[in-house]
């Protein structure tokens, strides 16, 4: 039997089901939306990406990504989970690859493989709900709850990554190789290169201060939760509840120089753009 929203909330409240990082905003009628966690790996980048620090995970066309969920799960021995990509991302051309189920007794963060079958890069930011998890209550407790190699996983380890292909753009590379094999004149085709971005001095300082904010946040959460903080030269120099007054004070004190103002909360500040209106000249 699949749990409905009220039951999921009840099981989490009672501690029978563990969802560390649970948010009521992620409850769906009969599922729970799992969010993008800190760590991901893409074949094109060939490294573990800290999405919280870098702000964004970009999945190139044809690329394969492993994304670790923000939520850590703990399922009792009479419950299993099934999950799939949220339809909004499926319609964009992403395909989630995963085992058939989250076993009874599993505890840890889920690692979800995603392939981008579209012709455009697709971006996912930290804490974006991207997968829906159904929870199924079984008729009885299983004899042998899950005790496999992924029990307790919370990071993308070398062991998880070592089985992945090492070449960028796996689908595109395969296609180019097949074309090259069938026509020698195409053998001059090189592997696609990522464009190199030049960044300004102001942007470099802004990014440095932003990283410093993420680094300092755990400590700031203990003393300044809910406040805004100004980061300058990698230090928290001003704090306050009114963001506009704070930035005015910072510019008066330090001049109009690059700095970073962050909200001391676990989740980033979110805004919604409510209108798709554009001038006729842009359509």
């Amino acid at each position: 039997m699949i749990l409905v929203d009220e039951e999921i909330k009840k099981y989490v409240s009672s501690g029978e089901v563990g969802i560390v990082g649970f948010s009521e905003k992620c409850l769906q009628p009969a599922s729970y939306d799992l969010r993008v966690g800190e760590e991901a790996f893409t074949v094109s980048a060939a490294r573990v990406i800290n999405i919280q620090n870098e702000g964004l995970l970009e999945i190139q066309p044809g690329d394969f990504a492993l994304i670790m969920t923000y939520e850590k799960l703990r399922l009792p021995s009479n419950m299993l989970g099934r999950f799939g990509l949220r339809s909004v991302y499926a319609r964009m051309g992403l395909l989630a690859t995963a085992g058939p189920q989250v076993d009874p007794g599993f505890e840890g963060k889920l690692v979800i493989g995603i392939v981008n079958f579209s012709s455009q890069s697709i971006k996912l930011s930290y804490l974006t709900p991207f997968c829906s998890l159904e929870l199924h209550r079984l008729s009885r407790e299983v004899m042998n709850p899950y005790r496999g190699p992924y029990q307790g996983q919370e990071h993308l380890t070398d062991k998880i990554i070592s089985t992945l292909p090492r070449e960028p753009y796996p689908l595109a590379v395969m296609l180019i190789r097949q074309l090259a094999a069938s026509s020698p004149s195409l053998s001059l085709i090189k592997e696609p290169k990522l464009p190199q971005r030049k960044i300004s001095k102001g942007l470099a300082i802004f990014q440095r201060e932003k990283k410093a904010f993420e680094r300092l946040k755990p400590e700031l959460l203990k003393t300044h939760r809910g406040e805004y903080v100004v980061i300058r030269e990698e230090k928290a120099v001003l704090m306050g509840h009114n963001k506009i007054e704070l930035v005015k004070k910072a510019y008066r004190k330090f001049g109009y120089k690059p700095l970073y103002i962050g909200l001391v909360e676990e989740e980033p500040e979110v805004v919604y753009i409510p209108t798709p209106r554009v001038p006729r000249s842009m359509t």
Partner: protein
Amino acid sequence: MIHLYDNYHYNPPAPVLPITIRIPDSIKQLTTDALVDTGADITCLPRAFIGTLRAERASTYDVFAINGVSVGPCDSYFLEFELAGDQRQAFFLSNDK
């Protein structure tokens, strides 16, 4: 003062007002037409204007479109503006997506 809806550039007609933007306490400014949305959380600005004003980033927001799709984190800029004779300061988003 009465401003008419712009039915030349927008269909359906939209409320548009001239806006002057500058970095705080600067004399360098630019004036353009702004689409007014009284229900909006944030003000958006074309990236070209940021370059013209030489504005510096101040903060970041996670931006979602109305259908719930993540646009991604967008940098924001603290700027002064004049709109309909009123002078204020606010955070502006700029991201050409």
